C-alpha cells in the first residue's frame, strides 16, 4: 500500500495532503512539528487579492480547490479593498485551523502533531523513512518537504532582530527542520534588496480589545481601517526589509493599515510599542503575534529547495517533492496552496509511474512556477519576492494577460489547456509493458 509522507503541516503541506488523496494515494500522513496545522497561516488571512483571484480560480478549475473553497466559506470579509489590493477576502484566523484539520481528516489524511522530523534513512537513492525527535520511524514511498523557510532562532538572530516569539514557537516545539537539508541537498537563501540574507515577515497581529470602539466598528463593517500616522510619530523605515513587497507602498508607511481577520492584522513588520500607542485609537494595544512585534518579526526564506517545475527536489534523492516556501521565493497562502497541491499530486503520479503534471504557461500558476524558478538562478532574482498579489509578478501577470478577475474566463482557460478537474481524479497506474 503506497504511503505519501508530508513533512510540515502549513498551507502547502495541507494542500499536498488533499491533492495526494484526490490523486488516489492510499495513505497520506502529515507530520507537523507544532500542535497546530497552518504554520504561518495561523496568522495572515488575505486571499483572492489581485492576481491571487486568478490563481485560486485556476486551482478550483483544475480540481484542487478544496482549501480555496474553505477559505472562501470562512471569510469574514469578501470582495473588499485595501490600498493597492482589489477583490480581497479575509479569512477568520482563529477559526481556520480547526476547520482545516476537520477537512483533512474527513478526506482520509492522517495527521501527526508535535511530530518533529529530525532524521531520515536513505536506501538506494530514495528516502525510505523519516524519524521523529522521540525516535519513532515512519516509512514512506514518496516524501514532500513542506517544512517552510522561517527561522529558527539562530537565523532570526543572525539576520533579523532575534527570536521575537512568533506563532511558529520554535522554543517550545523545536526549531524548523528541513527534509531537503537532512538529505544533504544544498539549499538557497533569499536575499533582501541590499543583498543580506532573508526577509522579515510583513505583518503583526493584536486583539480587538485594545482598540478604540470606533475603529473596531469600522473594521468589522469594511474589513479595513486606515489611520494616518501623526507627523510627530517617527516611524522606522521598515519598507525594504519586508517579505511581502506588495505591501511596500507609501500608503503603508504614512498610515497604519489594519485588516479584520477576526484578530487585527497590522500591515507592518514591526513598530515600537510606544510609537504604535501614539496613534489615535491604538493607545491600549499590545502585540499578540509576534509577541515581541515591538522589536522585530520572524525571518523567512532561509532554506529553499532546488526544484523543477513538477516540484521534484533536484539532487541525488529520487522520491522527494517540495511545496510552499521551500519551493522558492513565492510569498503567500495562495502561492503555498498552489505549489503544495502540485507537489502532492505529482508525488502520486511518480508512485503510479506516470508522467509528471507540469502546468502550462497559459495559466498564471504554471507561469509563476517556471518564472520564479528561472529568476532564482540569478543573483538579482534572489533579491526579489514573487506573489500573485503585487510587486513584479503581478505586473508580469498583467503584461502577459494572465490576470483575470472573471471566474468564467479563468475556467475556460483551464478547459482550453485540457486540465479541467485534472487534480480531482485518481491517477491510474501506468500500464505495465508485457
Amino acid at each position: 500500500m503506497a504511503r505519501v509522507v508530508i513533512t510540515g503541516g502549513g498551507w502547502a503541506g495541507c494542500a499536498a495532503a488533499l491533492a495526494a488523496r484526490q490523486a488516489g494515494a492510499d495513505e497520506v500522513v502529515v507530520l507537523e512539528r507544532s500542535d497546530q496545522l497552518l504554520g504561518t497561516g495561523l496568522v495572515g488571512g488575505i486571499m483572492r487579492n489581485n492576481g491571487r483571484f486568478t490563481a485560486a480560480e485556476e486551482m478550483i478549475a483544475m480540481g484542487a480547490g478544496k482549501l480555496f473553497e474553505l477559505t472562501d466559506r470562512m471569510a469574514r470579509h469578501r470582495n473588499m479593498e485595501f490600498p493597492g489590493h482589489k477583490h480581497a477576502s479575509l479569512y477568520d484566523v482563529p477559526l481556520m485551523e480547526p476547520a482545516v484539520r476537520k477537512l483533512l481528516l474527513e478526506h482520509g489524511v492522517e495527521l501527526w502533531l508535535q511530530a518533529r522530523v529530525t532524521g531520515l534513512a536513505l536506501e538506494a537513492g530514495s528516502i525510505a523513512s523519516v524519524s521523529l525527535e522521540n525516535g519513532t520511524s515512519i516509512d514512506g514511498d514518496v516524501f514532500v518537504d513542506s517544512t517552510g523557510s522561517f527561522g529558527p532562532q539562530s537565523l532570526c538572530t543572525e539576520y533579523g532582530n532575534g527570536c521575537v516569539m512568533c506563532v511558529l514557537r520554535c522554543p517550545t516545539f523545536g526549531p524548523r527542520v528541513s527534509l531537503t537539508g537532512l538529505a544533504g541537498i544544498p539549499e538557497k537563501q533569499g536575499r533582501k534588496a541590499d543583498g543580506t540574507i532573508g526577509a522579515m515577515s510583513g505583518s503583526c497581529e493584536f486583539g480587538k480589545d485594545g482598540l478604540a470602539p470606533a475603529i473596531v466598528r469600522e473594521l468589522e463593517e469594511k474589513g479595513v481601517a486606515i489611520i494616518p500616522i501623526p507627523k510627530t510619530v517617527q516611524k522606522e523605515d521598515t519598507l525594504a526589509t519586508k517579505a511581502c513587497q506588495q505591501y511596500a507602498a507609501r500608503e503603508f508607511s504614512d498610515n497604519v493599515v489594519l485588516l479584520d481577520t477576526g484578530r487585527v492584522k497590522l500591515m507592518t513588520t514591526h513598530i515600537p510599542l510606544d510609537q504604535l500607542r501614539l496613534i489615535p485609537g491604538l493607545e491600549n494595544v499590545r502585540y499578540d503575534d509576534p509577541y515581541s512585534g515591538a522589536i522585530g518579526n520572524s525571518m523567512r526564506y532561509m532554506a529553499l529547495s532546488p526544484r523543477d517545475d513538477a516540484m521534484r527536489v533536484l539532487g541525488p534523492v529520487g522520491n522527494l517533492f517540495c511545496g510552499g516556501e521551500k519551493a522558492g521565493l513565492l510569498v503567500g497562502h495562495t502561492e503555498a496552496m498552489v505549489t503544495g497541491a502540485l507537489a502532492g499530486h505529482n508525488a502520486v503520479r511518480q508512485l503510479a509511474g506516470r508522467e509528471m503534471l507540469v502546468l502550462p504557461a497559459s495559466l498564471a500558476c504554471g507561469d509563476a512556477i517556471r518564472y520564479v524558478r528561472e529568476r532564482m538562478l540569478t543573483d538579482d532574482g534572489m533579491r526579489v519576492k514573487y506573489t500573485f498579489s503585487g510587486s513584479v509578478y503581478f505586473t508580469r501577470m498583467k503584461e502577459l494577460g494572465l490576470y483575470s478577475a472573471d471566474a468564467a474566463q479563468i475556467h475556460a482557460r483551464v478547459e482550453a489547456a485540457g486540465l479541467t478537474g485534472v487534480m480531482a481524479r485518481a491517477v491510474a497506474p501506468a500500464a505495465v509493458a508485457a
Partner: protein
Amino acid sequence: MAYMITAECINCSACEYECPVRAISGGPNQFVIDAAVCVECDGHFPVPRCTNACPVNACVPWRASYAARAGSLAARGAPPVRLAPSAASRPAP
C-alpha cells in the same frame, strides 16, 4: 576554532556535563562555550560531544556573522526604557 551555542538553546544543561574540557557554562540567557577553552573535542571524541548531546542542534561550529549579530541585538542589553512619573502624580510642593 571552536564551537558555539546558538539561540536555539533551551537551557537543558546536557552539554555542560558532556564537555571533556569544561568549556561550557550557564550564561545570562543560555549556555555558552568559552572559545578559548573549546578544542572541538580534538583528541577526546570523534564528533564534538556537545553536538551529540544537544536535543535542539544548538551546538554548532563557530560563525563570525552569528557571533557579531548576537552580540549587537538592540533589544538585548539595551538601556532600559525609563518612564518618569507624570507631573500630576507628584505630591504638591
